[in-house]
């Protein structure tokens, strides 16, 4: 039982680590650009 739990924990930690590294270095989500600002387009400039 102990061995199974320990193995589950190891593989969970490994999965989390791989997902983190993948997101950090390979798949970087696109960030939103700053909101448009200028004409009276409801941006609050006016």
């Amino acid at each position, binding site marked *: 039982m102990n061995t199974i739990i320990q193995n589950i924990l190891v593989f969970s930690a490994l999965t989390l680590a791989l997902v983190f590294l993948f997101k*950090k270095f390979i798949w*970087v989500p696109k960030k939103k650009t*700053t*909101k448009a600002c200028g*004409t009276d387009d409801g941006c609050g400039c006016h």
Partner: protein
Amino acid sequence: MSKQINVALIGNPNTGKTSVFNALTGLNQKVGNYPGITVEKKEGICKLPRGVKAHIIDLPGTYSLNASSLDENVVIELLLNKNDKDFPDVAVVVTDVENLKRNLLLFTQIKDLEIPTILAINMSDRMKYKGISLDIDYLEKQLETKIALISTRKSKGIDNLKELITNYKELSKKPCMNASLIDESYFNNLRKAFPNQLLYKLWLVITQDVNFGKTDRKTFDKVEDFKTKSKTDLKRLQQKETIKRYQFINDALKKGQTIDLNSAKDLRIKLDRVLTHKVWGYLIFGIILLTIFQAIYDWSSIPMDFIDSSFAALSEWVKNTLPEGAFTNLLAEGIISGLGGIVIFIPQIAFLFLFIAILEESGYMSRVVFLMDRIMRRFGLSGKSVVPLISGTACAIPAIMATRNIESWKERLITILVTPFTTCSARLPVYLIIISLVIPEGRILGLSYQALTLMLLYLIGFGAAVGSAWILNKILKIKSKTFFVVEMPNYKLPMFKNVALTVLEKTKSFVFGAGKIILAISIVLWFLASYGPGDNFNNAESIITQQYATENLSEDELQQKIASHKLEHSFIGIAGHAIEPAIRPLGYDWKIGIAIVSSFAAREVFVGTLATIYSVGSDEEETIKNRMAGEVNPILGGPLFNFASGISLLLFYAFAMQCMSTLAIVKRETNSWKWPMYQLVIMSAFAYIVALIAFQVLK
């Protein structure tokens, strides 16, 4: 329920804006980035009288609202966008009492946006030394504002500033200057075309067309009855606006400020004569550098030894306390050892940032930039390249972003390409551990060999940056020249609070930024080192037992042999052996090879990787340094980390482009993969050749 108001701290650089921010928020502050861009955003919470809470935002320093850089655009975009969640209920313009005239230009522009504005005149404690006196009542009337005379150094006037912020609704919104005065007919047309909008805001939108999304100056061309002007004409009007503003400021200060030059005691000129002298200046800078590196070594050895032994003891305790199994091993050998490999360097990193913060706070760093400018020009770089190169000692990423204020594209490109040579804080752990292993502990003239080696590595990095800039300058044929202006702030005693907060923030970002990557890589490496394919790994015990059946090995020795056999045939062992032929001529074994490959994510991962690899299968409580010192070269015999292989490794890390994040930022800043790929190939090849020569000569 208490109300929260938004307060924007705005001001010229070197006015002590950040000191005001620290005085208002204390430790209730956080640092992030503005969305979509990489300009630093500092915000915090301040408790004001009568239960009011203020959300304080420390905006980037700017000389005016005529933006010329990304940092300055942030200020304008926030002040023009009422829908922004950070749009200020009140703006606090921080000024320096000694540069009031220049600082008031920005104040009048913000006031004209009809935002309630408080004028905070900082460094008031210096007034008597400079012979300055102010008629506050008169200035308040002329500038239509409330003034807080403060001294963050002496903690004076902050309560009054808080009181004024609390009562911000009483502030006048009346502008300082009638915008129409800039060009009456043009502004009358503008008013007719956009009757419901604030004239000065429209003027800013017309003139600052860079970062205003959908609207640029062309939008105004589409409006009937309004004809905008050419860029040259608009520039002329901007100059006219500045002149008008200074006329207004001069009038206000004529009666509001008196300066008695006879009572001004100026130590600054005398100090500048020495500190920026073409001989003494460099000599003093050299002595300061030597002192810093010596202190980094001397002061941090005790806390480092403590952290090292604590992590070794923690790892041992986890193994002995938790139930036996794979996860316990992962915790003890992978995670704790890997994290220990980074936490151990906190004292040295903190001391380095402590000295940098003191140099910046005291005003000396600007003199260093001035001194370095003289050198840089000979290598075809402008003085503006000095700032990225010096800030590269912390991290190449913000340093590369700091090149944005270099107007000439070629000069900027060269600075981007050479900045990764400067010794960043991520190299420091690698240097420190290897120096401690291969450089003796003796001293010469009171300076340790180890501190001198570290300083030499910093100089090699800077020399490589300047040298490669010279070569690139010849290849790329820079024709355009840029001017360089650096403001020399007054000398002042560093404020403990500012220095402490800088050290805390920088160390935190180093540990948490690198820590997460190291933790993840430690887990992956431990897995790869603890599992393997085939019989050689799975039947290691029986293979070794049979192999050494005739020899009288103790149980410990046998377990050691089994662990070593397993590691060699694990996934990581197989990968390490595959790359070994390429790195053996440099004096490295496969374990170092794995550490080099994994540290491509971030250089500081090198130490954590070795700590993890050397911990797998080991039952002994050992420090990282002892484990590395005990490694034996499998081919040549003797210590694996000896003088030749150590110097080879130091030089490899001095020149190699071992940082994925830097490559990504270079790609973003140059908008092409071509330049980061050149950088990667050339720097790595150069590092390999230098490391190869070093090992072959020294072995």
